[in-house]
């Protein structure tokens, strides 16, 4: 051990500092973005100054220490080149982003194709799941024979199989040249009414796709689609927030995950615009005003799409949005479950660490008790024994401290998961903070006799005291202007801060003379003298 009888001067003089000068040169050579440069500089500065401090303690003069520390960093240009190379962004990240975009686009396109099976000839029997689950009067109707028929006779047999009155708007249809005696060129013996209607619509290309059925309570109407479209024209609003990243909702239970929106408001309404285009492309594309049609129109406000369109298009939109939300929720739920799983794992780890901490704490406490053995009846101190005990205790304290640090990191990860995914299952174990900390405020110090060891004085009382008061109570005087290190860990803080100051400053400067609170741990290391009046 090196005995530090005359501590070195502070490493940083006010005149141009050689460390700063060297760092200036290095940073100028770095081919990396500016904020990164400052961080590289900060880290290397810490390295250099820590190294210089160490070398000074080992007895080198300041110029020697500086020279050795810088030499150890190697060729400046070489170091700059290696650091610049290490800071190049990895390419994979960009590829991953592209892959994600492609995957998202693929999903949306697939959904669009999937949900937008055209069902145009049967507007009322819509593609929405609810409607298809209900027994439609048309689809449940009796079988129809299609052979040597006219449109008129087809409608007659169609009427026969349905238990509701059927109104055929011949007048309207005649405007398009469709009449009761228009022949049907289809031959099939028996088919259900809805299929027959589809076949008629498809098989008579000139007029078929313009005929539509409108199912109403107590009445079934057959007429022109344009006629029904005008009658069922309506303005509705669709909230697409769940699809553009505001929140995702389980379509069955209404349960939501409060995931924050992607990006800013502009991105969100951009997302809504994207959804609107999806609707345009897949829900009766030719009817949108924006695509040259004359029926459907939309406007976008934030995450709301306002659509004016006939009922059949609204039904297509509703079913398409519902399907998209359902898919989105499935994806989100998988993420949510993974997040919950991870949070549970974290809670377990925090608990395990706590048990480990407690066992170290026991060990630490028993060392604290055994320390009394080093203080002999004669008033002398068995410095060797004390040195060993204090070394072990210091080691334990370091390990305990690193457990606390790890726990605090885990807790913040856990908090982020909970915040991000908004699940309510806050895990108790990670919430309950340990109450047992290193209990009493303490002061360790170097004495002249045990230069590098840490002898100890225990401050039994709680409350707040100042370092100078503790030192004075134990018979220490301000002493000369010698450098000491003050290591102060506040209760509940994972890491101690250290400050270099002087004995004189502790007694004279309010900044150096710090408050020690209950549960704090403090150590003062350096060489300072007992007051003559002690013992």
């Amino acid at each position, binding site marked *: 051990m090196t005995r530090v009888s005359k501590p070195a001067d*502070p*490493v*940083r003089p006010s005149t141009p500092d050689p460390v700063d000068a060297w760092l200036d040169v290095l940073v100028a050579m770095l081919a990396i973005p500016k904020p990164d440069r400052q*961080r*590289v500089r*900060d*880290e*290397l*500065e*810490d*390295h250099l*100054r*820590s*190294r210089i*401090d160490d070398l000074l303690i080992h007895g080198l003069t300041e110029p020697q220490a500086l020279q050795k520390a810088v030499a*150890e*960093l*190697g*060729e400046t240009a*070489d*170091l700059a080149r*290696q*650091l610049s*190379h*290490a*800071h190049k*962004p*990895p390419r994979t990240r960009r590829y991953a982003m592209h892959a994600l975009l492609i995957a998202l686009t693929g999903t949306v396109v697939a959904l669009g194709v999937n949900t937008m099976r055209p069902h145009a000839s049967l507007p009322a029997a819509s593609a929405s799941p609810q409607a298809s689950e209900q027994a439609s009067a048309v689809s449940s109707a009796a079988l129809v024979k299609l052979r040597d028929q006219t449109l008129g006779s087809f409608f007659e047999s169609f009427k026969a199989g349905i238990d509701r009155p059927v109104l055929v708007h011949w007048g309207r249809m005649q405007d398009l040249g469709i009449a009761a005696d228009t022949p049907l060129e289809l031959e099939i013996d028996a088919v259900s009414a809805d299929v027959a209607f589809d076949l008629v619509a498809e098989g008579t290309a000139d007029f078929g796709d313009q005929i539509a059925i409108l199912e109403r309570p107590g009445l079934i109407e057959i007429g022109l689609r344009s006629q029904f479209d005008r009658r069922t024209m309506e303005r509705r609003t669709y909230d697409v927030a769940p699809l553009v990243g505001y929140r995702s909702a389980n379509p069955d239970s209404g349960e939501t995950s409060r995931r924050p929106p992607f990006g800013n408001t502009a991105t969100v309404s951009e997302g809504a615009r994207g959804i609107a285009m999806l609707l345009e492309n897949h829900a009766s594309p030719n009817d949108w005003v924006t695509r040259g049609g004359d029926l459907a129109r939309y406007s976008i406000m934030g995450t709301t799409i306002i659509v004016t369109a006939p009922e059949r298009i609204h039904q297509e939109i509703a079913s398409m949005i519902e399907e998209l939300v359902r898919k989105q929720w499935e994806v989100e739920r998988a993420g949510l479950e993974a997040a919950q799983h991870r949070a549970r794992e974290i809670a377990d780890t925090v608990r395990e660490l706590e048990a480990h901490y407690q066992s170290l704490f026991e060990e630490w406490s028993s060392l604290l008790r055994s320390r009394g053995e080093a203080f002999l009846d004669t008033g002398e101190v068995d410095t060797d024994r004390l040195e060993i005990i204090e070394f072990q205790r210091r080691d334990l304290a*370091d*390990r305990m401290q*690193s457990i606390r*640090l*790890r726990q605090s*990191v885990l807790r913040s990860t856990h908090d982020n998961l909970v915040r991000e995914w908004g699940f309510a299952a806050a895990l108790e174990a990670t919430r309950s903070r340990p109450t047992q900390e290193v209990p009493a405020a303490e002061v360790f110090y170097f004495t002249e006799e045990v230069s590098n060891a840490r002898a100890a004085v225990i401050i039994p009382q709680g409350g707040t005291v100042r370092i100078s008061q503790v030192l004075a109570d134990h018979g220490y005087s301000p002493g000369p202007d010698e450098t000491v290190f003050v290591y102060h860990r506040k209760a509940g803080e994972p*890491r101690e*801060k*250290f*400050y*270099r*100051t*002087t004995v004189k*400053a502790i007694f004279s*400067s309010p*900044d*150096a003379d710090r408050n020690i609170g209950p549960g704090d741990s403090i150590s003062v290391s350096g060489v300072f003298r007992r007051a003559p009046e002690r013992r």
Partner: protein
Amino acid sequence: MLTLKPDHSELVVLAVLAEAPSYGYAISKAVAARSEGHFRLGPSSLYPMLTKLEKQGLVDTDWEEVKADTADPDAEGRKRKWYRLSAKGQKRLAQHIEAYHRARSILDTFVAPAAEGRGATQ
């Protein structure tokens, strides 16, 4: 004194960080102390490697302000960058350890017979 190969230095640094979070200078000291001075991980290889580990998400970092002189209480302290192993880093360390054991067991099949004096003659 041995200079570590890149693969080994990553293993060594991850192993040091697996025990407790640390910062650059302390890591280089820990490597030297643990290997009783046999391994040397100089700043010119340590810091670029730490940067890469950070970019790959193997370590998480945060900054601490370290004050070294209260003679001027208003003066800014210097900044210390702490590194701690991420979950991904732990996985990578486990892979390194497995690779090390595999390589060692393969080498053992050559070394053990040679050490018994059979390897050279057979």
